């Protein structure tokens, strides 16, 4: 569905690359996460994949179209949601969607249906200048679904949203993916990536450090610990046991058989911990980065 080979991009057209030697493939129906801090090269890569930036060096193929010379027809097959809301403020939510709907040459979804799933149907005729940031973000998000895209590019789809709305957005992404949509998800949010992605790529300083599924990464880099909170007499004890160490396993078995366990959970490594381990850097926004 999406193939990227040896991609390089320089905004200054010299050897100061924002993206260098990036290579990956995304299968049809996959949710592929592009994880990295701000300024790592996520938006540049997505920009090239969506035709917003010109392909300078490398090979990029999106939904069967060579991005060296992308056809406008390609945009009937992809959808792009932006991190920053970009709707017409002087038009209503419905007018915004009605306008974009007319630009596609393929069957499109009903704008009112989209407003409904975004929870904006009650303000369909309200000017978007009166919308909150979250409402605009949801409108930008559902706009990218208008043409029922085969490949869906989402840039920080839940950033800046309250947890309830973020959860709705994630549910929509899951539903669309189950219906067969391929998703390219750029984010610095490890929880979103962990929850949604079949595979993730860690990108930092314009280079991909690794590509794998969250499960494999956790198995490979996690410590495989089990945390237990149990009562020993009147005392509440908290302990972690390795699932590899024989002594720990026996002790854990003993607690399970005899102890009053109150809480027990696996302590797997988070994607952020793995990211730090692999790249030596965190995923938080770097305010000073471009």
């Amino acid at each position, binding site marked *: 569905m999406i193939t990227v080979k040896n991609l390089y991009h320089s905004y200054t057209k010299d050897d100061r690359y924002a993206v260098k030697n990036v290579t990956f493939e995304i299968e049809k129906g996959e949710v592929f996460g592009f994880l990295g801090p701000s300024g790592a090269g996520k938006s540049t890569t997505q920009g090239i994949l969506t*035709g917003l930036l*010109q392909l300078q060096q490398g090979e990029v193929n999106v939904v069967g179209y060579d991005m060296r010379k992308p056809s*406008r027809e390609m*945009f009937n097959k992809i959808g792009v949601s932006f991190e*920053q809301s970009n709707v*017409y403020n002087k*038009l209503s939510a419905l007018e915004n969607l009605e306008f*974009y709907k*007319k*630009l596609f040459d393929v069957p499109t979804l009903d704008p009112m249906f989209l407003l409904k799933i975004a929870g904006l149907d009650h303000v369909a005729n309200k000017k978007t200048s009166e919308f909150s940031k979250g409402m605009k973000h949801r409108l930008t998000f559902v706009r990218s679904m208008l043409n029922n895209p085969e490949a869906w590019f989402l840039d920080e789809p839940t950033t800046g949203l309250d947890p309830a709305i973020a959860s709705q957005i994630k549910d929509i992404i899951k539903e669309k993916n189950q219906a067969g949509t391929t998703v390219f998800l750029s984010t610095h949010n490890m929880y979103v990536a962990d929850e949604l992605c079949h595979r993730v790529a860690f990108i930092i300083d314009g280079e991909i450090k690794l590509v794998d599924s969250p499960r494999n990464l956790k198995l490979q880099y996690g410590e495989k610990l089990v945390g237990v909170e149990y009562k020993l007499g009147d005392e509440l004890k908290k302990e972690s046991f390795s699932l590899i160490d024989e002594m720990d396993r026996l002790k854990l078995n003993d607690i399970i058989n005899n102890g009053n366990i109150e809480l027990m959970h696996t302590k797997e490594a988070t994607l952020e911990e793995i990211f730090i381990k692999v790249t030596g850097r965190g995923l938080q926004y770097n305010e000073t980065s471009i």
Partner: protein
Amino acid sequence: MRLLYNFLKDMRLSSKSFYFYLEIGFTVIIIAVLLFVVPENFENNLSIYLHLDVDDALYGEIMGTLGDNSTDEITIVDSREALEEAMSENRSSVGLSIYRENNQTVYNFVLQGYEEEKFKNIIKTTVETAFANEMFGDTDNITVITLNQGVEKLSDRINMIPIILTMNVSFMGLFIIASYIFLDKEEGTIRALAVTPNRMWEYLLGKMGVLLVSGIISGFLLMAIMVGSKANYLHFSVLLITTSLFGSALGLFVSSFFDTMTKAMGWLFMIIIIFALAATSYFSPSFSPMIIKFLPSYPIMFAFREVLLNNPDINYIYMTALGFGVATIVLFIAANYRFRKTLTI
């Protein structure tokens, strides 16, 4: 069809914005100024104060020469001092003191001091013709030849309309289209459009369409109120449409070299100022250096002037329209090419 949707969307957006009404608002203000402030013709009655210190015979001869001169206001004063005093009170005046000295008639011109050399010569020649030659019976030697016999003269008020049409209608789009483009860029809506099957030329042409509508409204408003049915509106429409599109296309092309309105503003402003220089040659055709004739505003002003005449030079109007039509296409293709590479960065 996408072009139509772009145009309709832009019309809807611009009808809710300040820029759309800017051009029309200016036109309304200009119409009001033309109607209520600017006279039909600028009166240029020069007062002449005349002091005569001559014998009765010459006095009678001079007064006879003045006869029924109705164009200039001539006032006889008693003394040279009275002449200067009258002139200091009326700055739009010249003085002439005629007296006898050494058996010769002396013509002494008294000017305000701000007059140009050309004007001084005209005054001198006029007085010489009016007084001296007639008095000495040389009028038969003076011949006046008019080179262009069929030249139509517009009233001073109507004569200003071609400049207003050129600067306010044809070239106002230069600024406004740049504002529309950079506003879209700032709001990010251009990036949202760029990931649809919408083509850049459809987007740009939609914007030009809006400018064309406001240009047509402004132009026809001005013409209908100021000229009425005297103008040929077919010629006018063709010229208005092509030059308005040219202004927008030029605005697009210039804007394509910049990424913000602030950066583009200086250049756009400079272009407008340079284009306005053509007005100097329009009002003073004797001053038409080649560099001014090369300005696009020059032929546009004169073509609009032709539209206002009873016997217009149709060939000139349509050649101008054709030239600007071709230039519009070239500029638009160049702007489209550049924006495709730069607008979404």
